Each structure stands twice: as C-alpha cells, then as structure tokens.
C-alpha cells in the first residue's frame, strides 16, 4: 500500500516536471517579442536589446529552461512584465479569490447535484426526473460564458456586477487569508462581509448552474446503474425497506464512482472559473492568466499554468486517495 503511494507520488513529480517542460516550450512559441512587450512601445532598439539580455532571452531555449527551473526550485517564479511584481506575489493575491469563488459555489452545487442525481435516479421515469433531466442537459449544453452574460443581464440591476467588494469597504478589514468571507467574518466587519457576499452571488450562481447540472446527470446515471445491480435485487428480495436498500447499499456503492466523477468535474470547473472571472471582472487567477497570455507576459503565463495544473494534479491525487479508501479492491493494483 505504501509502496503504491510512493510510486504514485514519484509518478506525480515526474508528471509535474514534464508539465513544466511543455508549458515552458509552449510559452516560447507564443508569437511576439516579450522583451519588446516589457520595454514598452516607445523603447529604443538599445533598450530592448538590454532588456532582452537581462531577461536571458538571447540564450538558447534549453538554457533558459534550465535557468527557469533553477529559479523555480528556489521558489522564484520570476517577475511579471505587466504588473512589475514577482509572479509569486501576484498569484498569492489572486489565487484566494478564485478559491473563494470555487469553494463558495461548491457549497451549493455539491449537495444540490448529489441530491438531484439521487432523486432522479430513485424516481426514474417520473416527471421530476424528466424535468430535472431537461434542466441538466440545458445546464451543461449552454455555454458558460453565455449563461454568465444572461445572469448579468437579469440580475444586474439588483446586484453588483463586477469585482469582489465595494472598494471603500475593503479598508475596513485586514487581509489575512485572502478569503474575504473568512477575513471579514473573523474580524467582525459586517458591512464588508455583506458586500463580499453580494458580489459573490452572480458568479457563484453561474458556476452553480453549470456544475449542478453536470454533477446531477452523472450522479443519476451512476446511482441508476448501482440500483440495477444484482445485490440490490437481493437486498430487496430479502425484504429490506426501500430506504435501507437505498442508503445502506446503493449509495455506499455509488460513492466510489461518484468520487471519480467529482474528480473529473474539476477540469471543467477550472475552465468555467476562467470564463466567469472574465465576464464578472473577478480578480482571480483565471483572469490573471488570460491577461498574461495577451500581454505576452511569459513569467506570469508559466506561473499561472503551473499553479493551476499543480492544484489540479493535487486535487486528483486526493480524489485517488479517497477512491482507494472507499474501494478496497483497488489497493493492491
């Protein structure tokens, strides 16, 4: 068991290393001259040449990669061309915004999706099932950025449509974790808390719609499949109540693939966070990454991609662990 974990961990490290290679070389391929971008539009040829030298862009790509990795091990992600600050600092500031949005909406779509899926599976064929399925299909097939725009249109008069908080109120508390809801609550500044909450509503609503729909669909098919299994029929024939059948047997077994499903959903969630941040001007890492790509901000691009990918890899690893914990059969593979 331990050796399996060790092997997995080692595999993960190699994967992350490979990811840095791919990211680095992809970034190099982006058309445009980062030295020029850094120097500014009016810079002279000499200034650009100097900056190119400072940034090490005149060296062969492999050497640049080496330099980048060396700095990475020291925890130095380079300096953003656009903000002129260390990328690490930028990400440290922006990441909590995205995490807050993701986790806040997860508080809604996780239970909603699960309940919806189970309900539909149990009531398969009924009108509840059909209506929910229709909603789910729509929720998944409507482009997220479009849903975001619609929500902006419908709720825009009543709720704030951009940013995380009313700027004036952001002075009322100290940034400790970067998760505004947490910080404002623990420091007792209620107006700030309410402001953050009101700013969260629309982007979180967008994410919730998409995620609930997707999760609901998958959970439904999962639970249905489990309900069709033989041991369920056995349990029923033993005379156990429907509720016992459901909770004791079906759901416990459905838990395993459901964990996998949630893991799979993460990739989509990341995409959706990117799009939602763009539409609602949410100052998270998604928006930072998109801006970085358009600014040819190589250090920021690489930093963002690596951070998000590492989180994704880490999350998947945790999902795998949960899966293993739930499913004894897998442990000895």
């Amino acid at each position, binding site marked *: 068991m331990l050796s399996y974990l060790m092997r997995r961990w080692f*595999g993960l490290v*190699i*994967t*992350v290393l*490979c*990811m840095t290679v*791919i*990211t680095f070389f*992809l*970034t190099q*391929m*982006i*058309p445009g001259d980062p030295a020029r971008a850094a120097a500014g539009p009016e810079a002279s040829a000499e200034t650009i040449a100097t900056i190119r030298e400072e940034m090490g862009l005149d060296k062969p790509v492999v050497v640049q990669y080496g330099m980048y990795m060396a700095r990475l091990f020291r925890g130095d992600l380079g300096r953003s061309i656009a903000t002129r600050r260390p990328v690490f600092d930028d990400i440290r500031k922006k990441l909590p915004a995205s995490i807050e949005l993701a986790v806040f909406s997860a508080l809604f779509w996780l239970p909603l999706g699960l309940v919806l899926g189970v309900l539909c599976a149990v009531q398969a064929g009924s009108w509840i099932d059909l209506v929910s399925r229709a909603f789910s*299909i*729509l929720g*998944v*097939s*409507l*482009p*997220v*950025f*479009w849903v975001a*725009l*619609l929500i*902006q*249109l419908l709720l*825009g008069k009543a709720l704030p449509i951009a940013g995380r908080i009313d700027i004036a109120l952001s002075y009322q508390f100290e940034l400790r974790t970067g998760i505004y809801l947490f910080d404002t609550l623990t420091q007792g500044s209620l107006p700030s808390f309410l402001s953050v909450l009101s700013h969260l509503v629309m982007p979180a609503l967008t994410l919730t719609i998409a995620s609930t729909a997707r999760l609901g669909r998958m959970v439904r*098919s999962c639970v249905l*499949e489990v309900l*069709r299994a033989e041991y369920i029929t056995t349990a029923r024939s033993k005379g156990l109540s429907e509720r016992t059948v459901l909770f004791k047997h079906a759901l416990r077994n459905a838990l395993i*693939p459901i964990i*996998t*499903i949630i893991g*799979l959903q*993460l*990739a*989509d969630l*990341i*995409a959706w966070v*990117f*799009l939602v941040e*763009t539409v609602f001007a949410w100052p998270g890492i998604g928006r930072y*990454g*998109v801006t970085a*790509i*358009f600014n040819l901000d190589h250090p920021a*691009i690489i930093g963002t*991609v690596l951070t*998000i*990918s590492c989180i*994704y*890899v880490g999350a*998947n690893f945790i999902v795998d662990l949960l899966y293993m914990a739930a499913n004894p059969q897998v442990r000895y593979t």
Partner: protein
Amino acid sequence: MVGLVMLGIAIATAASSPFVVPYPPNESNTQEAYVPPSRTHFLGTDVLGRDVLSRVLAGTPIALRVVGEVLLIAGLIGMFLGTFAGYLGGVVDSLIMRCADVFLSFPNFLLAMAIAAAFGASLENAMLAVGISLWPRYARLVRGQFLELREKSFVEAARAIGASNTRIAVHHILSNCIGPLLVQLSLDAALAILTTSALSFVGLGASPPTPEWGVMISDSRIYITTYWWMPLFPGIAISFVATGFMLIGDGLQDALSPTLRQRHYEAS
C-alpha cells in the same frame, strides 16, 4: 431519439444554409443596422446590418466542421497512440501512457488556451488545440481494450488460424472498441463545440467576419442589455447543437451494456 433528430436538423441546416439563408450572411447593410427582431429580420440585425438569422444559420456548417475536426484530431491521435501502446506494450506503452498522464494533468481548457495562444489565434488553431487536449482519453480507451482483449480466446483462435498480427489488431480488437469509442466521441462532441466557442469568446479563436457562434457572442457581448438579440441567438444555437450531441451520447450509453460504463469511468 430526440438527439438524433436534433443532429439531423443541424446537419440539414448546415447543408442547406447557403441556399436557405434569407440574406447573405457576410454582406453588410448599414442602413438596417441594430434592427430588433421583426418581420423582415426574424432575429434582428447586427452592428453592420447583417441579418442575425442568416449568420446563425451560416454558422451551422462551421460548428459541425469544428466538431468533426476536433474529434478527428483527438480520435486519430488517440487511436494511433493507443494502438501502439496496447499492441507493443513494454517501454512504448509506459512512455505513451506517461505522455497521456501529463496531458491529462493539465485541465483541458487551460491546455487548449495555451496551445491556441502558442500557435496564434485562429479557428483552425483553436480546433487543433482542443483536439490535442482531448487525445489522451481515446488513447487510454483503445489501449485498455487492447490489454483486455489481448488475452481473450478469440485472439488465440485467430492466431491459430494464421491471421497476421496486424489483422488481429485492426479487425478484432479495434472493432470491439467501436462501442465505447462512439460514446466518448459523442460526449466529447458537445465539449468540442463548447470549448472552441469559449476560445473564440476569449479571443483565441475565429476572426471576423466568420459567422462562428462564439465570435458572434464575443462581438456583441456589450450589447446584452441593449441589443440583446445579437448575443442571444448564437448562444441558443450552440446550446442546440451541444444538446443534440449530448442526447445522442446519452442514448448510446444507455443502449450499450452497463459494464461499458464502468470501464469508461476507469479509462478516463
């Protein structure tokens, strides 16, 4: 199934759109700009006076082409590499699977964005990017099939009667993949159109005046509160096509054996 009907509608629209459009989709008519939905323009006109209905219809062949190309790229690369991995096994297998892991470790939208940015923003590159971000699933699938069926009896039997290795590979094993492959393809079809239009929305996809739905939404994004018909209808179109594919995928999944789904989960 409803899905097939929807797809059928989409294909029919795509095929007939050059003939059926009420107005030339790329021809501007500035006198009629900003017209809301009316008798002469069912879905209104856009900033340059182009008929929205015509542009949405004209976008259908583009959308279907997007789905086709993305799936082709992902499927071909995936099947190719999956076959190699499953068939040759050993080092080649580990290498290819390690590659697949790395690609899977990137959230696929992020990867698609990075690739599209690296190659330069255009519809072709966006399709390429999305296709590349999707190949690992197919590779895994095909390879999984190989590993399973390799040992099965009919392979032994086929070998016994002297069938060459290639024949075994292509004929027997791949033909067994068709089922799960189709399911994956149809599920990814919706993903293909959604991701590509998302790339266009962000600015990494098609460029004007292509009547691609994602670009149309992006262009008219600021008009959501004023000239709402401009971003609304392309969005409905995307949703329509995506729903169609999804329903087909669902249907296929339901139709094929349940154990297929279990394998599908593990393969992803």
